[in-house]
């Protein structure tokens, strides 16, 4: 067999690297240091830069515990937008390559009311694409999600002096007419995927390659634990406190909290009924998914092991005998929220 091209090695490495968070900034720097030129964390291209004054490292770290008692993993300190003039700090993702179909999380704390902009924005080149902010036109504590660097839509959530976990889901082509969509979840439970966004927006081509943290005229916003990943779980690593199942119904207390059920009362009958009628929820058992092969094959992953598929290029001179010309094997590491790999032949 001939050797596959050199692209193979690059491909396998890239796929493996996407299995967890793509970028992480814990702000593990010295307190009071200017953010510019600091280059900690992972998944970034070089150091923080500034356009205006630099944000500075805060004195303390920020923490988040959800309503079911699960605690977000944190480290380092935090960053604040406080300054004598407008602060704008930028950092670019590794390679400067725009990303889409990602989850983003960060901790957000607005200390007090004002009519200034404070926010976290996502850019491609010099273009602001979407922003989480306290906009200048609103003096409330509400957290907004807007297109570009605008205020946009209020989540109707947010309190002064309280640390909030902001989670964004950017999905490619899922908006109206194939536009991209951003959904914002404020203070979600960490035990499972959130399902009802507090705000959302749609726009064309929201692929972003850099992050900006900014405070108008040096107004203060604290930000910490900035994560970008391929799944909700990637950007919300947490300790669940033993994950008990108090009512013994097979659902952990944290899972019942996500489902809006009472963790002290068994829901075994409900779970069994859902399993008996997955079609009510547009869901399937494993066999139902494996049947959706689209004329190709579907493979189910085991644990976090990569999946392997093999294809052959065959040749013939008489259209009867088809000896193998070359065999290719590929390893695919699926994101943590994906379970199956479907490979189809799209031969024209």
């Amino acid at each position: 067999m001939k050797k596959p091209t050199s692209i193979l090695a690059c491909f396998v490495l890239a796929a493996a690297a996407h299995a967890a968070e793509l970028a992480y900034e814990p702000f593990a720097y010295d307190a009071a240091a200017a953010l510019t030129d600091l280059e900690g964390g992972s998944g970034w291209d070089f150091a923080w830069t500034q356009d205006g004054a630099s944000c500075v490292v805060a004195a303390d770290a920020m923490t988040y515990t959800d309503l079911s008692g699960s605690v977000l993993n944190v480290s380092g300190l935090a960053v604040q937008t406080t300054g004598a003039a407008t602060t704008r700090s930028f950092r670019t993702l590794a390679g400067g390559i725009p990303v889409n179909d990602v989850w983003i999380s960060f901790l957000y704390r607005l200390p007090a009311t004002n009519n200034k902009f404070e926010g976290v924005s996502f850019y491609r080149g010099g273009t602001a694409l979407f922003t989480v902010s306290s906009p200048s036109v609103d003096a409330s504590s509400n957290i907004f999600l807007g297109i570009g660097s605008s205020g946009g839509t209020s989540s109707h959530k947010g309190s002064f002096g309280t640390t909030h976990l902001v989670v964004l889901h950017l999905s490619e082509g899922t908006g109206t007419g194939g536009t991209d969509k951003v959904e914002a979840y404020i203070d979600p439970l960490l035990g499972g995927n959130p399902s009802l966004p507090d705000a959302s927006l749609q726009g064309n081509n929201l692929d972003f390659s850099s992050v900006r943290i900014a405070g108008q005229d040096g107004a203060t916003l604290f930000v910490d634990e900035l994560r970008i990943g391929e799944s909700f779980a990637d950007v919300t690593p947490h300790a669940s406190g033993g994950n008990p199942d108090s009512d013994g119904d097979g659902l952990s207390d944290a899972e019942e909290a996500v489902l809006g059920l009472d963790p002290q009362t068994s829901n075994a009958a409900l779970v069994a009924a859902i399993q008996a009628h997955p079609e009510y929820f547009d869901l399937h058992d494993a066999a139902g998914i494996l049947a959706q092969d689209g004329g190709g094959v579907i493979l189910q992953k085991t644990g976090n092991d990569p999946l392997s598929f093999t294809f052959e290029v065959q040749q013939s001179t008489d259209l009867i005998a088809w000896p193998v010309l070359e065999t290719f094997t590929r390893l695919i590491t699926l994101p943590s929220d994906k379970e199956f790999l479907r490979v189809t032949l799209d031969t024209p």
Partner: protein
Amino acid sequence: MRTPTILLAGFAFGASLVSAAPLAQDSFSYPAGDLTGQGGAGDGWIAAWDGANPVIVRTPGLSFADAFGNILTTTGSALNTADGTGTTTISSREVTDRDAETWISVLIQPQTTSSDFIGVSFYQNDLTQANARFAIENAGGKDLRLTRRVVPVLNSAAFGTTVGTTVLAVLHLVPDGGSGLTPDRIDVFFNPALDVEPGAPHASLMIDGLQFDRVRVAGAAGNSVLVDEIRIGATYADVTPFTAPTDPDSDADGLTNSQEAALGLDPFVSDAVLIAAVKANPKFVGLYSSNQIVDRGLRGPFLRVFGADSIDYSVDIAKGSGTVIESVGNPLDSPPSRNFLRLYLDTP
């Protein structure tokens, strides 16, 4: 645990309103093409449709079901305000004078986002600007709003729509419902339940006088919206005839009453949060969703001929979106004069 409940009460709601024939109705049961000349006098209408640059009749007609599964009675075709030429289209039809409490319903399906006027307007005496009364129109985009055309022009808040999704707009003309110089009122309801007269309107505008005697459907600069089932009546039921579903969804949460019974849920209490959470976290109940599948497609083999003894073949590996993420291939050494290549997926 959720408790099962008795279902029988829910099935009785379906046809609680008594409807009579509307004062005027047009379902556009006309041949495809220009609307001008279609219809005629009778059934509440004074004349046929008129217009030098008319909107066009197209198939199929529009349909609408409310959140409870009640299906609006529809027939015939629909109108498209775009005739394909990019010019402004205007069609109007005279109706019996009306200056009393009135209900009006119309199906509208946005086809595009536009800052130009697209919509259904109501006039008195003629189509001059001075005699425009009120309209359902696009709100400077794809969303819809009620507009008072009587000077000073006044717009209601917009109702969010999705391009390609049909909206039922219902107007209620209320004599003496206003105050002062605008003693009358127009309420607008978007996508109301069909089986009960709606309560709180989406928006209301005050107006002096509710008279109108003609309907105009128009699209500026070739912009498209689909319009169907214009009804004018004395009661809400007159303009919203419907067929009750055999298995209703009384709490409008997406599960029918019989499905909720099978799950042991209360069909009169919305389980929308639970449903969304289960769909977002199928692994909690041992199930899977189709969006947990990662797609890869193999395309090829492709041939590149550089000379009689110099031919390369390649195969593309693409994401489900079609984006090629890898291309593999090699030269074909000493290819025979006739040679065929094919792909074979060698993964069980």
